């Protein structure tokens, strides 16, 4: 296979990937996040390519495509901001919303999830660590991990050991797991708001 043929095939594959890309709608909604060269080429969702061309021309298409894809996927300001908000929201409940200037919403999320987590600890619930001995606890681990900073703090301070003899143990564990799962939803909500999919 010659170099030009290989480049053509690569370009065709990349175009197919691009048109199948689920983020194409965002490029239409938010064209200002793309460089002008990307706008002109991607705004319709289809990239018209020449079937033939010189090696240098094909190579330039390939390089430009790579730059556009790289720019869109990794350096789009909106996407970086939304991922940052999601991570912040995961670390501390409601922080993603507060960064996005949704103060009341962030405060309510913070209070509710923190209260649920605190009640879970008061009720002597257990915070699960990752272990493969009992596979079902892996689900508990992932739900507890959703609470973010509190999870690591409680592990450091040896909280959330759980008291099986207590009558409130099950409820306490459910409170902690519920707080973690809700925090995942809150973080994803902050992600959507940053992407302007929601208000």
């Amino acid at each position, binding site marked *: 296979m010659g170099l030009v043929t290989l480049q053509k095939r690569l370009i065709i594959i990349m175009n197919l990937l691009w048109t199948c890309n689920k983020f194409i709608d965002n490029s239409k909604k938010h064209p200002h996040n793309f460089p002008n060269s990307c706008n002109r080429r991607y705004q319709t969702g289809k990239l018209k390519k020449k079937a033939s061309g010189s090696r240098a021309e094909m190579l330039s298409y390939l390089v430009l495509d790579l730059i556009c894809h790289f720019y869109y996927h990794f350096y789009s300001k909106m996407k970086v901001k939304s991922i940052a908000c999601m991570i912040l929201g995961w670390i501390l409940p409601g922080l993603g919303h507060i960064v996005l200037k949704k103060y009341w*919403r962030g405060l*309510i*999320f913070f209070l*509710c*999830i923190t*209260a*649920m987590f605190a*009640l879970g600890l*008061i*009720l002597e619930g257990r915070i699960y660590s990752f272990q493969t001995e009992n596979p079902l606890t892996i689900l508990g681990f992932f739900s507890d991990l959703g609470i973010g900073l509190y999870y690591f703090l409680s592990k450091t301070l040896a909280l959330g050991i759980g008291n099986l003899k207590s*009558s*409130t143990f099950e*409820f306490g564990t*459910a*409170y902690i797991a*519920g707080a973690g799962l*809700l925090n995942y*939803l*809150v973080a994803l*909500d902050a992600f959507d708001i940053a992407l302007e999919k*929601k*208000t």
Partner: protein
Amino acid sequence: MILKSHLFSLIIYAFFVCIVLAIIRRRERKAQIRYFVSLFLIMVVGALLFGWFMYLFIS
């Protein structure tokens, strides 16, 4: 301790979950309140009904 009551714990749990879900799922204030009330009732009444349903199978 009041939290030893499972019913009370259930109501508090449902209260917090419903607040968060109502704010996430709805944007307008009235819609949020309506969603909160309906979800809260579904959770609490549903749990009570299911509890009584399980009571039938006690041998």
